[in-house]
């Protein structure tokens, strides 16, 4: 039982693997991710513009990749975690029509600070390697937790979405 804040430091060990997450790299996602980060470089939305600048098609922006990596990590830790560091190295681009599979492993732990190594692989090879540092809560629910009576209403839609992923 992880409680409303998610995993605690005590419940995590070096070597723990995060469940893999496959992300279909649709053209829509690549464009939505670029625009949601206010990145209007044409290589992320205009196929001909991308070709003119030396790539065969539009490709995912680094901020989009970072957003997916952050989500992948906090999906697993739960909302009690604080991301303190995110270090990303990009490899082959994420082009539309492919699928990126994210995998991760806990590679370090000091008190309640853990380090997670995340790897995103697409059909052409390694797209991203990230090191993510996360501070986890010591206990499942801090004293300032909201009254339980409000929790079921607000949490229900999120839980439903969680179950379908």
């Amino acid at each position, binding site marked *: 039982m992880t409680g409303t804040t998610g995993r605690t430091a005590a419940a995590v060990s070096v070597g723990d693997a995060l469940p893999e997450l496959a992300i279909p790299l649709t053209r829509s996602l690549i464009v939505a991710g670029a625009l949601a980060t206010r990145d209007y470089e044409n290589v992320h939305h205009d196929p001909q513009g991308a070709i003119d600048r*030396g790539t065969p098609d539009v490709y995912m922006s*680094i*901020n989009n990749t970072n957003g997916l990596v952050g989500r992948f990590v906090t999906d697993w830790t739960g*909302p009690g975690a604080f991301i303190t560091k*995110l*270090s990303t190295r990009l490899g082959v681009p994420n082009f539309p029509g492919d699928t990126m599979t994210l995998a991760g492993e806990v590679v370090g732990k000091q008190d309640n600070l853990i380090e997670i190594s995340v790897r995103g692989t697409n059909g052409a090879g390694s797209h991203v390697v990230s090191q993510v540092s996360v501070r986890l809560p010591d206990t499942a629910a801090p004293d300032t937790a909201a009254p339980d009576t*409000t929790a079921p209403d607000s949490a229900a839609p999120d839980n439903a979405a969680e179950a379908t992923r």
Partner: protein
Amino acid sequence: MSATTQQRPAAGPDAEEFLTQLRTFVGQQATPVRYAQDAVNPAMIRHFVEAMGDENPVYTDETAARSTGRSGIVAPPPMLSSWLMVGYKAHTAAAEHGAPDSPMTRLLNLLGDAGYVGVVATNDEQEYVRELRIGDRLKMTAVIEDVSPRKVTGLGAGHFITTLRTYTDADDQVVARQRFRILRFDPTVTKSSGQPAAADPGLRHRPFVMRDNQFWFDAARERRLVIQTCSDCGQLRHPPGPSCPQCGSFAWHETAAAGRGTVHSYVTSHHPKAPGYDYPLTVLLVDLEEGTRLVADYSGDPETVRVGLPVEVDWLDYGGDVTLPRFRNREEQS
């Protein structure tokens, strides 16, 4: 500096001079201090988390955020740079009329003029001092930290530019630091072969040029294949040398070769792999029509080579000031 990609400096003194020029930007403030157009707000956060498929309730749900000990909803940390983007209007204006002048603009233009027209982010290290809350108004300073020597990547040859960005809040407290690296690259290095991983000839060993053979390499740079010819007895000779092996005369002149010949012998190398070459690598010994022999690469498929194959000269730019002959299969010419 010429804008043609053929003259981009790949190695040697030109490359060093170019790198020195690029590195004058190191330590300079990349762009003027940038202020966020909008304070951290729930609408932009929603756009972001929906695109990412991020269901973490601390980004959208006040109650859930408070139940984790936060004072209210926070922005997803990886969204950091989104708050400081210049926006569509300024971006398109810069794309049409050029970016506003700044050291970063000048550095990018210098590279663009040298043929490095592509740009892609490669590394991003973000350190968050604290989470961003609704209402935070950020500003950012960026310093050019490093410009790399020319490197060859799967996308093409290019230079990496590293900037260090510091994000501060309205009280001038640092909320995040970001080390951001981009590659400004020349896609034509790989485009010519149609293979993204094709080797860059700029990495190859340079020929050993001295007084006796300089004329030959000078001609090759102009894509002319020449043969040293004795001015006294008319004997052709290759490789170049100071005196005629037949009559001993030191007088000589150049004769233009037609650039056609047949394969006398060849070798196909698979290993070890030297930088700058695609493998398997076929090297020919070519009998030129004029009678001298020449060692050169074969540009065709290694499967098609044989002794006696008619070939024709082709040229390969190594970048910088080196161009050398190679030979293509004349039977495959239409």
